């Protein structure tokens, strides 16, 4: 194994593109090192991207925020303006692992690890986040939702690196939230999860909404029926019940050591319901 920590993105891409065997980008390393330890991968090349300019910055841009691919969860949590704009995305990121893991783990790493249970991904998808990807053929933008294609697989091609993730501006009276179900209070991988982002008008009526689910399908799900269930409502009980049912209906989970199909299906709806209520109150709605 070779370890490189280039200073420029061009060098990084060059290294990755010319490596013939398996290579791995190293951001926070909280997935990569575990995989090395368990000998799940034996890469020829590791490219640490933390020394590349801009990778560690959170920058305000067009009313939203651009988050460098090497920014840790802890750094996101310490950024008051980011927390104010996208509390749900930040809370999703901060749910990952322990305080120690937070000191290293990144949004981009969580996304590229492509676990169906990745916590930040449903929140980013609900937020319509967009990744900036640089590769041998230049730079492209890609909605976060289109990056994971199946468990452990992304749509990135050889030599491509995510350099940042953009969380867009949002109208006033918007709120987002993310909730997951785990058997303990910390240190578990999500058994089911939901992200909700919504905007309300001055009457408290939901005008836009996006609802996503994690850990209940091979990749993150966007549940259109759930958003349409609450658009035009003030999250009355009936609307919430429809959202919950729509979420459960959308689930396509597996039975494994972490949960049963039945359990995941049911709790995903519960998480979505509760997340919607939190997002609504963050948007300024009162019930």
């Amino acid at each position: 194994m070779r370890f490189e920590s280039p200073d420029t993105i061009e060098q990084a891409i060059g290294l990755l593109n010319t490596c013939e065997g398996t290579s791995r980008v190293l951001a926070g390393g909280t997935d990569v090192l575990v995989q090395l330890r368990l000998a799940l991968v034996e890469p020829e090349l590791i490219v640490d991207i933390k020394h590349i300019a801009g990778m560690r910055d959170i920058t305000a841009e067009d009313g939203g925020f651009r988050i460098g691919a090497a920014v840790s969860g802890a750094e996101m949590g310490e950024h008051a303006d980011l927390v104010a704009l996208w509390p749900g995305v930040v809370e999703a990121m901060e749910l990952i692992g322990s305080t120690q893991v937070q000191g290293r783990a990144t949004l981009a790493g969580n996304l590229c690890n492509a676990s169906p249970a990745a916590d930040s991904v449903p929140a980013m998808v609900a937020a319509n986040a967009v990744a900036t990807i640089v590769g041998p053929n230049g730079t492209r933008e890609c909605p976060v939702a289109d990056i994971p294609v199946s468990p452990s697989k992304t749509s990135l091609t050889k030599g491509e690196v995510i350099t940042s993730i953009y969380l867009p501006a949002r109208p006033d009276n918007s709120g987002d939230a993310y909730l997951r179900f785990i058997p303990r209070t910390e240190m578990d991988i999500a058994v089911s999860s939901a992200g909700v982002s919504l905007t309300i008008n001055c009457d408290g009526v939901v005008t836009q909404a996006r609802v996503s689910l994690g850990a209940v399908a091979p990749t993150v799900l966007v549940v259109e029926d759930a958003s349409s269930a609450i658009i035009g409502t003030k999250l009355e009980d009936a609307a919430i019940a429809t959202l919950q049912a729509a979420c459960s209906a959308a689930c396509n989970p597996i039975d494994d050591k972490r949960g049963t199909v039945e359990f995941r299906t049911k709790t995903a709806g519960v998480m979505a319901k509760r997340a919607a209520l939190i997002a609504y109150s963050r948007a300024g709605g009162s019930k």
Partner: protein
Amino acid sequence: MVTEYKEGSVGAEFNKREFKVVGTRPPRPDGVDKVTGRALFGADFTAPGMLHATVLRSPHAHARIVSIDTSGALAMDGVKAVVTSEDFVKQTSSGNQDTLDNCMARGKVFYDGHAIVAVAATSVKIANAALKLIKVEYEILPHETDVDAAMLDSAPVLHEGRKFRNIPEGNNANVSGYWEFGHGDMDEGFAKADIVIERSFKTAATHQGYIEPHATLATMGPDGRGEIWVCTQGQFMVRDLAAAFVGIEASQLRVTASEIGGGFGGKTTVYLEPVALALAKKSGRPVKMVMTREEVFRASGPTTSSSTDVKIGMTKDGRITAGQAKLRYQGGAFPNITAMLGAMTAFASYDLEAVQTQAWNVLTNRPKQAAYRAPGAPMAIYTVESVVDELCQKLGLDPLEVRLLNAAKKGTLSSYGPTFDEIGLVATLEAAKAHPHYAAPLGPNQGRGVSCGFWFNFAGNTSVSMNINEDGTVAVIEGNPDIGGSRASISMMAAEELGIPLEKVRTIVADTNAIGFNDVTDGSRVTFAVGLATIKAARAAIQNMCGRAAQIWGIDADAVDWVDGAAVPTGHNAGDFPPMSLAKIAADSAKTGGPIAGHFEVNADGAGVSFGVHLVDVEVDPETGFTEIKRYTVFQDAGKAIHPDYVEGQMQGGAVQGIGWALNEEYIYGEDGKLQNAGFLDYRIPVASDLPMIDAVILEIPNPGHPYGVRGVGETGIVPPLAAVANGVSHAAGVRMTELPMSPPRILAAIDGAK
């Protein structure tokens, strides 16, 4: 919080003694080393020229080993030695042979993770690479990991042709042990009942979960002398087993116990030690071995899983008329007696006219179980306490009143045979009843659970030496690894008995060549048995010192007493001398006959059983099945709390391990017989945010078998939480839970099923 026991003859007599050091809370002697990173644990040892060894483990749950070819590994650069079962000596005792076969599979692998070959090389990386070059040909056999299924005639047989003793007709060849306990007429007992409840329960296997993986360093020269440094609960056990397996005499192997990062029973046997020693012998170099966390889960002993049928009868006013339990335990691929301990403890809290328990141990394709805190008792008592709770619920009776009505007390013929001496169950139940926790209001979706718990405690072989240094300080030398602060308690008992300040005493845990034999640190025995031996050793030293004073004063040795750390004449008739302090006697020792020491060796008994009662409030989320522990209080009889902080610590730690067992911990096997959750991510032990403070109320009902009244406290605390939490959850969720762990999917399914 310590509640003093006021009534009762024994209590009164013990309470007359005014302790000066015992019962205080001084800082522990090994504390500074442990907060500064200086303390050396198992994996912290190195030796010049040291090799690293790793182990090839079975990927199959059950297979015959057709052949092993290690030539590829041996040919690799940096590889220095390879061992298989062929490199060990055949044992005469079947128990030892089982332990050896568990260390290195012989002919057959019995579980996923079973060790087959070990390689010593100049680095871990090379050793691991060499493992990949070893070719093992397997004949894969059908496997079984479930206790009930392994008892069926259709189950694959693990040890073909092996006969086990005292197995009744009608059991299959996997049943390796059968036991029965009880007394009275069961039919008559059940006939007297107004209500009888019969239920079946299951509990999953759990792991001790010590944070420090097994680690050892062994050396052995061509002269056949060896040394082992190891994190273990018993250096003498390691010496005896490793020496026997490698074929050397005990005196030729010196074993030093490192600081130990948790054991809870799991480090009372050997895994790596004989292997490292054999590799050291073959390579002529020191060999270090450290398990990965995955290996700890796959290949070191968890506890047993169980399947139990319980039947209890009760009168309308809460008197238990009869209790019966059939306990089936599996503890992996080799015989063990945990089921027997379950059968003995199941009904120990009750004074019963009719009681019967039967226990079976069944062999399965899982790792060889190891002791885990009160082995066998938590799962047995869980079933009985659950049914007692349900009877109380059905009859509308207060669960503590019912337990008080039926509680075992002095003179009770216990369910497992002996008649109880002075015991603390009634006092413990009364303390729980009087505690504000029991009267506190509950919120929505909350439930309160109660359970009693019991453990025998053990005493056993113990040796202690005590040297009185010339500067008036004292060295206590004992042979039991300190797993939770015992050196503090031992020093305190030495200081108390000698009448000197605690700072003057230093206690060390010696290696196998420096002190007489000691049983392993288990059975909650150390503060009891080592404490007892320390007090007796101090008395021997005192006698010696009184003799020295008598010599100096020119009076009869009988005319000297020991008071507050000094020799004094017994009265005016004996002579009029000012007290002669320990320091003075020690300083003059060269002139009065040489060094002063005391020692004591014993195979102790009289450990004194211990009872506990736990109260817990839980809240269950009806939409997710998630359980939150809202409040928890432990009441336990310590006999005498030498260092109350560490007694509380045992109670709290035991309670939390029990909470983990009740809610989330379990060994999960796939259809393929492989362990699916061999890591802390999915083997879910409680984390700090899962818990409230654990209130600990110590009761002191002195144990007549110990000079200060001590009872072991290490194990009882893990016994009640399983039923306490299960009873709380059953009330909160409105449905009786009969399987552990009560993980959220299971609770939610039960809630939905009850609708």
